[in-house]
């Protein structure tokens, strides 16, 4: 009996063990997190690994079916088209949509960078509580502002889909006109090559929020611009009958051929979005890199998709793949999607509790790599991003530099300047490669708290101080109207030549042969040669060329169109004054006030003033050929102007790692300040192949007296043209002493000799010990009786 009892008990234990193992295995292999409760409304996976055909009736935001042939149909709504099978409310809280409501922020990620070149603003923002970033609300941005600023890279939802309470709380927003941008399922899951991010960006720019998903996915063709409509317009009003040219109401036109007889549309979808869809917003590329020279991430090269590791359930809480995430989100299975988990089978504490080798991940050899590296460094230090090199690698990201928006206009920008890899400690106290950007913004300090100012507020206070490019551009554009074919109006000053651009500003180029202090001269560029705008001639000469004065009349006419001109345009040649009066060229002797003047100008109180102020010329000449958009003189003037506005708090400007304020004497002074510290966030991709990892060539890849990893210097970069920038050593970001690392690095010069010495010592000592042992053994055994 007892024997039977033991057997039964043992079998029960074995069964329990098998069940436990099976449960554990299931926990490791199924989607992370507790299972999403599936209501009857929502589709549940039946276990088949195929994707159902998505031939669906489209529904609009009122949950009404869309008949593609009817007049003025509404755009499709993901909430009501996808929602019947997929829990839209659960999806709304996903990583890409729920930043405003998320309880935990997780490891820092790329911030939203508000970039305004005119005011020199590069403000890092995020709704998540990450160090160094500003909450958009605290920075004065409403959800509406945020959507218009960054909506091009938002996949809908979040700030682009505010609640009715939030809409009512933003009286200046135009949600009623634009609608809300719902979560755009197709932005990621559309397999169709017609999915067009550029179209999405364009629709957001036009404030066509509710139409953006329909237009971007190619479901329908969207026309009109909500941004040009009155704030009283409502989508149910239909077309704007008062204006069919300019303020055209947005509308959508579906292609009936894309629908079947039951008005169902075929969605060509991916369960796991393709990498292209992720890279729309997550591309990072070295600045000035040539496409054919760039490699892809080794995981992508091995055939993995982004979503093979960055998985999610219906809640769309993406696994981000960093160590410690599993603990943070309370899902142990997430640990197997970290580098360490997948390749080594270890969790963040190093315990071998994780199922390794997912999707064939190889087990790394790491031969000869001291253990301390695993304790102190994230895997990405050696394996990800560009290798450390002098001056770091300047990169551009989709979101910060507006990459991936194609069209006639150039959307991409070089600024903000983001560099990588900066090795710094992350929240887990391990050193990890990071991307870095220096913040730049105007603000006010009150009670030791710095509040950033909105660029519009700065522009309003600054007056003309921030407009030099605009002033010169306006003159050049005005003159462009009367240029002959092949001619371009230019301004030459210093070593540069300035020409108008399509944005109403100016572009600078080197002016060969000119000197730094050369005065400003208006001219005409033709076939590479530059002639003065007003040629030197004698107005009193009888044989003067009449075409010259006809040209002067054209110039005066053109200058008359310059907006906000300070006076009447005039041209003074020697002692003759040319004016354009009542449609005719008026030629008269220059009054006493104009003696000494020459060339074009404005007549202000009987005196001739230059077409643009010396300040404008000085400013644009100083900035020409640089990335900077502000001079110290401009910053001083703007700080002075901000101080006079009467608002609370001392005005300040942050750039290049320094904080600038006016001192008591009214001079610009700078100092270090926590607000000027750079913002960093860890990088993980692209992962390089093993042969390109740090350490492949030995310890001296990092440990040498001149290691870029430790000893490179990071200089503050920002929109302000100044020598007063912060300087930090690379080692300082790691919390390491530079001197020690240099000593330690130099010790690797003698490391090969040490190995040889230890090897020789080991061989000799080992041989002697072996001999002594053999002798002792021989004596004990009686083989050797005497010495």
């Amino acid at each position, binding site marked *: 009996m007892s024997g039977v009892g033991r057997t039964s008990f043992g079998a029960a234990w074995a069964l329990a063990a098998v069940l436990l193992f099976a449960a554990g295995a299931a926990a490791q292999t199924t989607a992370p997190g507790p299972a999403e409760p599936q209501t009857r409304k929502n589709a549940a996976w039946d276990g088949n690994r195929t994707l159902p055909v998505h031939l669906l009736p489209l529904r609009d935001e009122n949950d009404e079916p869309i008949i593609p042939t009817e007049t003025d149909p509404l755009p499709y709504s993901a909430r009501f088209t996808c929602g019947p099978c997929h829990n839209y409310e659960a999806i709304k809280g996903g990583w890409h949509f729920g930043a405003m409501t998320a309880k935990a922020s997780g490891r820092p990620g790329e911030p939203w960078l508000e970039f305004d070149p005119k005011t020199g603003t590069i403000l890092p923002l995020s709704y998540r509580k990450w160090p160094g970033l500003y909450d958009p609300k605290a920075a004065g941005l409403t959800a509406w502002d945020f959507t218009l600023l960054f909506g091009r890279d938002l996949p809908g939802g979040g700030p682009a889909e505010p609640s009715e309470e939030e809409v009512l709380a933003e009286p200046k927003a135009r949600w009623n006109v634009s609608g809300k941008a719902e979560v755009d399922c197709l932005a990621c899951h559309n397999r169709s090559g017609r999915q067009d991010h550029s179209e999405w960006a364009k629709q957001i720019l036009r404030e066509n929020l509710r139409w953006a998903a329909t237009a971007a996915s190619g479901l329908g063709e969207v026309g009109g611009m909500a941004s040009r409509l009155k704030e009283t317009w409502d989508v149910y009003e239909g077309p704007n009958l008062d204006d069919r040219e300019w303020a055209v109401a947005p509308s959508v036109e579906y292609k009936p051929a894309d629908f079947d007889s039951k008005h169902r549309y075929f969605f060509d979808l991916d369960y796991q979005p393709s990498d292209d869809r992720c890279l729309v917003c997550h591309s990072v590329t070295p600045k000035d890199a040539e496409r054919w020279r760039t490699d892809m991430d080794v995981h992508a090269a091995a055939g993995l998709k982004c979503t093979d590791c960055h998985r999610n359930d219906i809640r769309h809480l993406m696994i981000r793949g960093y160590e410690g995430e599993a603990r943070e989100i309370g899902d142990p299975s997430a640990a197997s999607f970290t580098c360490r988990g997948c390749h080594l089978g270890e969790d963040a504490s190093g315990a071998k509790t994780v199922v390794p080798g997912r999707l064939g991940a190889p087990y790394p050899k790491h031969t000869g790599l001291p253990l301390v590296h695993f304790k102190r460094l994230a895997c990405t230090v050696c394996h990800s991003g560009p290798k450390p090199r002098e001056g770091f690698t300047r990169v551009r990201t989709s979101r910060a530099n507006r990459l991936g928006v194609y069209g006639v206009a150039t959307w991409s920008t070089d600024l903000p300047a983001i560099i990588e890899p900066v090795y710094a400690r992350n929240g887990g106290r391990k050193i990890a490669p990071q991307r870095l950007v220096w913040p730049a913004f105007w603000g006010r300090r009150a009670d030791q708290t710095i509040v950033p100012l909105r660029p519009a507020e700065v522009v309003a206070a600054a007056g003309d101080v921030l407009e030099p490019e605009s002033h010169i551009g306006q003159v050049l554009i005005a003159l462009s109207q009367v240029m002959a074919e092949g001619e371009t109006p230019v301004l030459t000053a210093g070593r540069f030549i300035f020409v108008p651009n399509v944005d109403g500003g100016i572009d600078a180029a080197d002016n060969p042969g000119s000197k730094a202090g050369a005065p400003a001269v208006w001219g005409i560029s033709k076939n590479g040669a530059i002639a003065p705008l007003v040629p030197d001639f004698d107005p009193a000469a009888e044989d003067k060329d009449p075409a010259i004065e006809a040209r002067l009349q054209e110039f005066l006419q053109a200058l008359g169109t310059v907006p906000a001109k300070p006076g009447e345009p005039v041209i003074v040649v020697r002692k003759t004054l040319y004016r354009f009066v009542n449609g005719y060229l008026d030629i008269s002797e220059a009054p006493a006030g104009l003696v000494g003047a020459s060339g074009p100008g404005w007549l202000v109180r009987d005196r001739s003033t230059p077409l643009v102020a010396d300040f404008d010329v000085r400013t644009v000449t100083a900035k020409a050929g640089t990335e900077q958009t502000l001079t110290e003189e401009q910053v001083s003037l703007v700080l002075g102007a901000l101080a006079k506005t009467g608002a609370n708090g001392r005005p300040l400007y942050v750039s290049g790692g320094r904080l600038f304020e006016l001192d008591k004497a009214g001079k610009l002074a700078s100092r270090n300040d926590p607000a000027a510290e750079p913002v960093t966030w860890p990088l993980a991709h692209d992962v390089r192949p093993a042969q390109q990892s740090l350490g492949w060539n030995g310890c001296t890849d990092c440990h040498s007296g001149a290691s870029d990893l430790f000893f490179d210097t990071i200089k503050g970069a920002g929109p302000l043209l100044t020598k007063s920038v912060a300087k930090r050593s690379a080692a300082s970001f790691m919390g390491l002493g530079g001197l020690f690392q240099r000593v330690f690095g130099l*010790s690797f010069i003698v490391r090969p000799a040490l190995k040889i010495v230890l090897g020789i010592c080991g061989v000799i*000592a080992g041989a002697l010990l072996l001999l002594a042992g053999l002798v002792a053994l021989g004596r004990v055994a009686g083989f050797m009786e005497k010495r």
Partner: protein
Amino acid sequence: MLFIVVTILALAATLLGLAFHRFWTTRPEAKATILYAEIVRMFFAWLALRTVQMSRRASPRAWWAYAKGLPLWREPVLEKWLLAVLYGSFLYLAASGFFFAVFIPRGLFGYPLVGHVAAGGLFAVCLTIVVLFKGRDFVTVPKPASLSLSLLDPRKMGLTPARVRLWAFWLFAAAGFVLILSALLPMLRLLRTAGQREMFELHRYSALVSIVAAMVFAGLELFKRPRPPAA
């Protein structure tokens, strides 16, 4: 954590063992009774008294005088400096290694680590030379053993202080050899992570063995010779 516990226990046991040996061989009252409890009581009383006495006498000047009185300085010049470097490097290696291992969670790092690596090289060279030229002085001439149960009787093993001292020397040399090996191999591209981990543990434990052997050797060596003259 296990290593810390083992280290503390091993060092404490060695110190107590050496102290008891001193007590047993020098104090007549130790053999005045056959009651273990009485012997232990007398031992700890003696130990406490000696500790107080030594701490009262201890001072930098006394230590300096003691160091100057070591027979090491009376050796020929080459041998003198060889042993001085061996002892010095070993002391630094032991001090830095065990201090960081026991008291600093991060382990050995920074300048002490650089010093540890440099001292390790010196120690390896000196140890090899000592074994090569002095090892012969520590080769015993045991009798051929006979196969009998007496081999298992500790009282018939001939465990004299002199023999323990010899074995301590060879244990120290062997541990030194393992230390050299476990320092060298991780520097070569031979071992994977698991091997590195094993070597790291081997290094620590062989260091513990070497310091225990050194303590036993030094303890017995110091006890067998007359006290140095007072400073």
